[in-house]
């Protein structure tokens, strides 16, 4: 009994000391659950290689572009049996051309690939049938800031951003908040569960995206093989009767409409899948941002110009991706809404700024500031046009007014302060 008691007491004391030591020395200062789960997601995305495959797709041929080949002509050989002095043969094929400098023979060909996107030798769009794939490819991954669609009749509108560019923008937002994720403290299970759910859906979307990327790539490559194995359709685009003859090669899109249709369909499906992936990515970022705001900044992150910009990108991207319009992004509706928001805020100025004798001056200053900064009026995107009108007319319902005062008004004040407008209270 004595021994048993002694051992028991010793164990209890050791346990107490052990627990105390743990809390004093070893308990981590921050909670790495969120950080680790997101790190795993980054690894997953890198491992399945969607980014690398996208880049392959960018450079892959066989999607209907026209290749123009230049041959340097040294000698024309008269066609056998022909009495037409203008009838000559090149490489065993028959061509009609005009000879002005005597006999020339092809002794060497120098292929100069001159790729036009569905343009004929005169630079005109060959057929609107080809346009879809080009259209879709541009939606997917045109590099740089924007695709200018003005020259293309069938898709109207202002500049657009490709999905790849959008994804880079989302990456920037993700990287910013991800950095703070490693110092989160005490993330509640409910928050982590929401995060995990968003991650799970994003990974599933990535998997689908990967599958569809493979579908497009393999079909496109096999399609390309198909066209190069068969005899290309040759048309004489022009004859330079001094030194060169040009031949124009087309991949057999005109004669293989089913392949073209199939490839077009696969591209369209890829767009839908990519869009879904980006939407799920937005959800991940949203959850991440919520966790950072709650568990790093105690529920209130003081916004600065950078975070406003990041917030805007997220909101605008999400709104644009959800549009039921054609596959263009950053739609005109968003731009129009931003214009409305700017006008709306300008109309609210009298209610929220302590004005003095220089009211006109202040308003003018506001308009110039907001005109430049309208892209940052992110929170106002949440108000509908009708709601904005009601508030401006002082005809808002009690519920709307309460919502406005609690949620949007503080945000407007913050943003005005951000741009040095100067608002007391609000």
């Amino acid at each position, binding site marked *: *009994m*004595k021994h048993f*008691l*002694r051992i028991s*007491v010793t164990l209890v*004391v050791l346990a107490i000391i052990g627990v105390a030591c743990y809390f004093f020395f070893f308990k981590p200062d921050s909670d790495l659950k969120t*950080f680790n789960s997101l*790190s795993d997601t*980054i690894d997953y995305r890198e491992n399945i290689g969607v980014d690398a495959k996208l880049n392959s797709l960018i450079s892959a041929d066989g999607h209907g572009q026209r290749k123009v080949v230049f041959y340097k002509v040294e000698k024309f050989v008269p066609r056998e049996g022909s009495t037409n002095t203008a009838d000559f043969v090149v490489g065993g094929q028959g061509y009609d051309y005009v000879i002005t400098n005597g006999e020339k023979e092809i002794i060497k060909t120098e292929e100069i690939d001159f790729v036009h996107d569905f343009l004929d030798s005169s630079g005109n769009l060959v057929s609107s049938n080809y346009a879809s794939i080009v259209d879709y490819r541009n939606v997917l991954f045109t590099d740089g800031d924007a695709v200018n669609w003005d020259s293309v009749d069938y898709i109207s509108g202002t500049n657009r951003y490709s999905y790849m560019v959008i994804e880079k923008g989302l990456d920037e937002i993700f*990287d*910013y908040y*991800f*950095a*703070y*994720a*490693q*110092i989160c403290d005490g993330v509640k299970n409910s928050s982590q569960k929401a995060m995990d759910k968003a991650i799970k859906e994003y990974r599933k979307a990535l998997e689908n995206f990967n599958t569809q990327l493979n579908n497009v790539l393999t079909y496109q490559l096999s399609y390309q093989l198909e066209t190069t194995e068969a005899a290309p359709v040759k048309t004489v685009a022009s004859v330079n009767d001094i030194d060169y003859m040009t031949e124009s090669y087309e991949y057999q899109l005109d004669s293989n409409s089913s392949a073209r249709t199939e490839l077009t369909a696969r591209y369209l499906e890829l767009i839908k899948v990519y869009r879904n992936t980006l939407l799920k990515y937005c959800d991940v970022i949203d959850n991440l941002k919520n966790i950072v705001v709650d568990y*790093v*900044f105690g529920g209130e*992150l*003081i916004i*600065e*110009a*950078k975070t406003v910009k990041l917030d805007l990108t997220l909101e605008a991207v999400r709104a644009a991706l959800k549009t039921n319009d054609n596959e263009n992004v950053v739609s005109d509706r968003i731009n129009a809404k931003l214009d409305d928001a700017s006008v709306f805020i300008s109309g609210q100025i009298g209610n929220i700024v302590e004005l*003095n*004798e*220089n009211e006109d001056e202040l308003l003018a200053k506001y308009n110039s500031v907001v005109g430049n900064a309208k892209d940052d009026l992110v929170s106002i995107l949440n108000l509908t046009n009708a709601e904005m009108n009601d508030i401006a007319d002082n005809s808002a319902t009690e519920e709307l007014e309460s919502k406005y005062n609690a949620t949007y008004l503080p945000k407007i004040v*913050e943003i005005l*302060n*951000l741009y*040095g*407008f*100067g*608002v*007391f209270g609000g």
Partner: protein
Amino acid sequence: MDLAYLEVSMLKKIFGVLLIPILMVGVFAGCGKKHTLSDVHKLYTHIVDKYSYAVENNDLKEKDSYFFESVVNSDTEKETTGVSLDIEYKGELAEFLPDIASNSALKTSDPKLYNRYYALIYIEQKLLDWTFNYYKNWAPNMYASEELLKNDLEQEDVDNLYSKLEKLDEAIEAFSAEKSKAEDEIDAISFDGAINLTSFTYYYNDLIEASFDFVNTFRDMHVKYIWDTYTFGDNAEQNKLLLNRMIDEAYLNIAQIIYLENVKAFEYSECDLNPLLSLIDGGDYSQIIVSPLLTSVNKLANGKEAVLKNRSGVVDFYRADDIVLKTDYKYDATSDKYVAETYNDRLVDYIYYLKAFNQKVGIYKKVYSEFDVYEYNQVRLGFSATDMDTYVNSLDRVERANMVLLQDFSNETFANYIENFVKIFNN
């Protein structure tokens, strides 16, 4: 065998074994002496006396060390003691340093040597000036309020402040020894670049950090117990006081970040070479190190008289008189109207960015202590053979995240903070 007796006996032994550590914990917990604000004040005065030199009728009364300047008024014979840490030097070093900014002979003959001392003595002293400025202006307010606050002051806060002051005293002591060594060495082998200032700068940095520690703690208490509930209102005098406190606090805040970004970042305590000095020797110091540092502080100049004045007694801190508050309206004869000054708007902006600064500065300091800032700055400033892309790719996820956090604070939050502090003074 009497089991009951055995159990009681065992329990007594158990209790005896457990009692000792419990008692020890109790003793240690209550062991420290309790201090008052007056104790803090007395200790500070004692430190000042220990390290002051006195000027009587323009004659310098030499002491072993020179820190806080005290001045005796020749008419009243009343001695006024300075309260800011103000490092002075002896011997040959002292001959060259009083106005190093305009020491053209030194600059011409050996620009690298000039830059070395400029960085160490001029810039680091400036950091101390900006730090102790807060204490100098607000200590009287704090100490005078002790009676009013006696029921509110938490013992832990006061003891903590006292402890920080004790550490400052130790840091001054250690630095003083190193300074004397450096001065003796310079006197022995004359004033040239062969002097090894590694130890000197290491202890100087320690001293600066102990100063930050103490004044920060003092500021936190000052705000917590006196100023936290004050806001701008209709009382012009109170507005002015409030604004002056905010300005002094801004200098304190800015000094710490400038130190971490530009001075501490290059400390390498385990190494014999002080990289700050080796960077100075190795390259165009003024462009790479001084320039960003001075850009930060020169932003405070605003086209008015520069904040970075020499230390010959010219006032170099802005005060509330430089700012017109919203409650002040100026009559404009041309329009026959009272026109509100617009500085109030900028003040509101500053308050906003101060909140952002306060929100992130704790994170910045924590991350700073965990990240290899030295290597990062080597790459960033082009002293390393590694380019930035390669460096970033070599970091693991946590390190990369830390770097992003540091950059976010430095390039965004702190930059906004300084910019909006400066704007308050723009005419």
